[in-house]
């Protein structure tokens, strides 16, 4: 993702392990930060935040041991770009997963809202116990934001890639 960051204001940023306590803590922060503004917008940002950041927790290839549990690590930011709020996440993925992400994000960006809803309904029926639904999560993010996903997958070495994704939510 390339953008001029000079007019942007970081509202929230974090880099580290993401367990449920971290996820819910920052979720509460988001609700507090946006409490006086447009509640529809605030709710949308919150939902997108949970979907994208929970994906880091589930799927990051960088796992950190915390109290005997393996927890996904990565980074997220919520930024005010002027016309938009932007939710950005970044995490390591396995190279094979990186290829799947590229394919899934590309597909999502070609579809309109009606097609995305149909795809989400179809994918939801296919979800099984071991699958926590990353693909559907990204579809849902695209639907909520009513904007294209901005994403890159940078191959770091033979095993890992760095997955960056951001989504603009119009004010």
């Amino acid at each position: 993702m390339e953008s001029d960051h000079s007019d942007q204001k970081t509202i929230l940023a974090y880099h580290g392990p993401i367990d449920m306590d971290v996820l819910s803590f920052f979720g509460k922060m988001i609700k507090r930060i946006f409490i006086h503004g447009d509640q529809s917008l605030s709710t949308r940002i919150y939902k997108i935040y949970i979907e994208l950041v929970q994906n880091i927790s589930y799927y990051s290839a960088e796992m950190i041991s915390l109290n005997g549990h393996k927890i996904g690590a990565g980074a997220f930011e919520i930024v005010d770009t002027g016309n938009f709020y932007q939710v950005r996440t970044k995490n390591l993925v396995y190279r094979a997963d990186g290829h799947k992400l590229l394919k899934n994000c590309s597909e999502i960006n070609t579809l309109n809202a009606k097609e995305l809803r149909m795809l989400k309904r179809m994918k939801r029926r296919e979800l099984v116990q071991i699958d926590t639904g990353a693909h559907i999560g990204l579809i849902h993010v695209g639907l909520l934001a009513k904007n294209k996903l901005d994403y890159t997958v940078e191959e770091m070495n033979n095993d890992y890639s760095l997955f960056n994704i951001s989504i603009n939510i119009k004010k």
Partner: protein
Amino acid sequence: MENLVINEIPDSPFYPSVNFNAETGICEVVGESYMEETFKFYTPLLDWLKNYTYNNTNPVTFNFKLTYFNTSSSRLILDILDVLREHKEKGSDVEVNWYFDEQDPDMEDEVEDFMIESGLEINMVKF
């Protein structure tokens, strides 16, 4: 049959509270749902519903008061709706109400999708 009650956990806001009443058939799920182990949480709810509706036409009123649920949870919500639809198809009295904040218009699309996928009518109630 016993009631199923799961109280809200203040330090774990990602679990909804649950109150399924075996005497009245009124079932409620309230709060937010984005726990890690969605199947583990929702399986007892599904089992209770299947037992409650097994081989009878007991009436059920199911109230969803979820302000947020992640995509994993939505799969299990669909499973709940499937059980309710099957019960309704037996001739039982089944009413499903979805309470939502009018400041959350995206929720209307979600509920419409649930109706399409489950084939069950859901009353949308603004609060």
